[in-house]
């Protein structure tokens, strides 16, 4: 008798879903406690905009982070968040995604968190290629622990643990990532070019597989001038354009004239571009949508129901059961 009303409610539900839209405030939580001028603020703004534009349901979205300035990120999102331990954001996020492929999972990790203490997980996360969007907030220094050199600090960086300058050439997160089998998406952004940052964040979100986005960001507190040569000379930034990647806007092109066409499927070229550290390439270096995701390879079409469990368990128990005579197979 109430079929009509049921149908109505179903229709109205569907309508609500279509109409569902969110405001930036729906994703904002608290006032970020990052320093003024910190690149993390730019990343937060881009990501909140992405969530709004894509109408991501806050309860179905999880931001996972490790430890460091960058890893405070989830606290400033009004979604689910997981602010874990140093270096382990990636395996936590993998666990979340494996258990709940229905959730949208982002990872925020810093240069110390990802490329130093969590380096093993970084390499393997690339290899698993789970559908995660990973932001490497790379400010080339340890911030929260007050200025120690990180693996991405340029050689000669003076810090509290390298007062006479750091000794080693910086690790290049792009070439490392591009060197791992199963890599499927690598992009680089700079916090001072927010329009491209947003475009990259968006492309990364839409990529199925692990999208690795290195965001070069300023640390106004500990390395205030480190990125000045690149910021002050737009020609030291190389914009990557392609029909299957990003296209620099006309406005942007007036400032950043140094642009090339780069096919994101060309991994050899991507490695070449990434290897040049005199300039900062900005854009999508590599994007291969065909690399299988670990959760798809491993995910089961079977639901873990009591009936399936009973049947599966009993089949196993049968293999190891000693039956009393005349009582064969009399198990519920």
């Amino acid at each position, binding site marked *: 008798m109430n079929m009509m009303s049921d149908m109505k409610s179903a229709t109205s539900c569907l309508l609500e879903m279509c109409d569902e839209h969110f405001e930036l405030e729906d994703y904002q939580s608290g006032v970020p406690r990052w320093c003024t001028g910190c690149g993390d603020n730019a990343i937060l703004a881009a990501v909140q905009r992405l969530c709004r534009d894509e109408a991501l349901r806050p309860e179905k979205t999880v931001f996972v982070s490790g430890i460091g300035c960058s890893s405070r990120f989830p606290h400033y999102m009004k979604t689910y968040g*997981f602010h874990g331990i140093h270096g382990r954001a990636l395996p936590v996020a993998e666990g979340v995604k494996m258990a*709940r492929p229905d959730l949208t999972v982002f990872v925020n990790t810093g240069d110390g968190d990802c490329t130093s203490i969590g380096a093993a997980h970084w390499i393997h996360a690339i290899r698993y290629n789970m559908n995660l969007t990973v932001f490497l907030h790379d400010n080339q220094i340890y911030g929260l622990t007050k200025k120690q050199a990180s693996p991405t600090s340029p050689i000669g960086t003076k810090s509290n643990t390298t007062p006479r300058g750091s000794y080693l050439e910086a690790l290049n997160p792009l070439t490392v990532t591009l060197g791992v089998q199963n890599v499927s998406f690598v992009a680089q952004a700079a916090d001072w070019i927010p329009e491209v940052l947003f475009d990259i964040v968006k492309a990364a979100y839409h990529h199925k597989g692990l999208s690795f986005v290195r965001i070069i960001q300023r640390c106004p507190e500990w390395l205030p001038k480190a990125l000045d040569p690149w910021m002050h000379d737009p020609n030291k930034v190389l914009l990557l354009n392609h029909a299957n990647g990003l296209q620099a806007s006309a406005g942007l092109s007036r400032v950043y004239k140094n642009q090339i066409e780069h096919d994101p499927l060309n991994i050899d070229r991507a490695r070449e571009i990434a290897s040049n550290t005199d300039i900062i390439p900005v854009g999508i270096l590599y994007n291969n949508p065909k690399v299988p995701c670990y959760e798809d390879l491993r995910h089961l079409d079977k639901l873990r129901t009591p009936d399936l469990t009973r049947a599966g368990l*009993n089949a196993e128990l049968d293999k*190891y*059961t000693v039956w*009393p005579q005349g009582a064969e197979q009399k198990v519920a």
Partner: protein
Amino acid sequence: MNQLTKQKPARKAADRIQAAPGRKAPLTLKEHIVEIISDSGEGAQKCGQSLGAIAAQMGNGIWTTEIIPAEIRPPARSVAGASGNRIRIGSGYITNGGDETGLVVAFNEQVLLGRVRAKELKPGCIILLEDMWRTHADAKIVASYIETHGKLVAAGYKVYEIPMERECRTMVADPRRGKNMYALGMLCYIYSLELKLAVDQIVLAFGKKDQSVVDSNIMLLEAGHKWAAANLDFCYRIPATRSTEPQLVVNGNTALALGVLASGMEICAMYPITPATSASHYLSEVFEKVGGMVHQAEDEIAACAFAIGASYAGKCTITITSGPGYSLKQEAIGLAVMGEIPLVVVNVQRGGPSTGQPTKMEQGDLMTAIFGSHGDAPKVVMAPGTIEECFYSIITARKIAETFNMVVVVLTDAALATSQQPFARPQFSETWMAPPVDQSPVPEGAKPYDWDENTGLARRFIPGQPGGMHTLTGLAHDRDSHVAYDAEINEQTLRFRSLKLAALQKTLKPPKVFGEPKGDLLVVGWGSTKGAIEEAVEMLRAEGKKVSSLHLQFLQPMAPGIKEIMQGFKKVMTIESNWSDRPEDKIIDESNRRYSSMAILLRSRFLIDIDCFSEVKGQPIKPGTIRRVMLEKLKK
């Protein structure tokens, strides 16, 4: 009793077959311990497992223990290379590996020497020794064989030289494949076991391969049986009573993997480590059939973090490891404690510290399980004492983890992992499984950590639940999960996390005393020592001693009523396989003696002067040893 004659060198086997003594009336035994040992890869393991399974099917009580060399491929004929199986067969229910071995089948004299030196053989033990080495091309091997043989005979062992290799060679080209089934045939004769059951075992083991493998193994089995009947002057019968209930025969690691299957958990995240890995091997084979998966992570830390992520997302997850891996997981375990994320961690203990003795039994991780991770990180610690408890403890652990939002550590050890003991086949119950993940909207105004003032319990919000959005953090946090540096809040939350243990403790039943509730000496144990302790208590009670034992399954929190039980005895001591300083050492006295783990815990909690005995030889403590220790304690 039969006079056991020494065999002549087996080159005269053919003569002896003609002069066969025929089957004697079997000597009835209450129980016997038999070992089959070889170089690794020669199949002694399989032979032993099959023997155990056959005896179990006959209705005998059994306890099988794997003899495992530490290396994958130790050099052939090396003293440290013994690989095989040790089976204790009894008339009644067998709860442990027992004392020394009564009969050994050895494929070479060197692996046998290893067992002799480890004092694993009874004085006068019967040795069935492969004789091919007596006529080996290498003069050094011949010399070594003759020398060892002579020494063993002189030491009083009853050595039978058996032409296993030669006999097998008459039937198959490569006796390395199948000699173990020849040995199994001999053992079936010796213990009067039905040969048909052995044939069934062969079909079960090789049925998937081609029929010729099955046929050739059956041929060798029957030949071994026939040879033994014709040539051996002894045989035994261990009366059996068939159980009326179906019995499951698995080792501890398989039991705990089956527990994972039954518990409804969906993900096991692990990293390979001995002696835990076989549980994950088995799980990898079967978990997907019930909708689960095993994730082999890149390292132990990642395995734990992956499990925590999956648990946080709504599905309580398990990670299985051993000591060194457990150490690596400690920081992540602290995160689960702080975030109040349910998690089951299995630590199949092995010898430590460091790499220690990877394949050997030890109970050295109790303290690290209870007190591990920095700061105050209360977690539940359980220890199954039998193979059966390995199965059920996982189901219980999952439930506790999800009810209390806590980390539950399950401590087993290398002995449980590789031993087999039949137990009543479990009957699956839906209540073992977790309910579906809650995705309902959270009530208006509810907070992510709404701790109950009395119990410290709070419901948790799971991603996907509308209105429950919050950021879980390993930092100190308030009810809103907001980072809190306030001293008051920090103390309150420490209190709440600790109270959960007390809340769980209130639900536990007092443990049962084995023996009378009052007496002269109470022995307290935990984990795999259960069977051996109870057997020693039984022996002493039969001798009129007023002794009892108490075995604790919950180590943190401890069940109520333990103090009252201990007060019923004049003396209390623990028996454990973790180090305690020896009082007889010159510089050890009451002011510096380090007690065994459980003794420290009981002494500090109950203010009772509890002594301890510990043996850390990498193998289960034998009931005979425990009996001797208890007698000494009674005298003191």
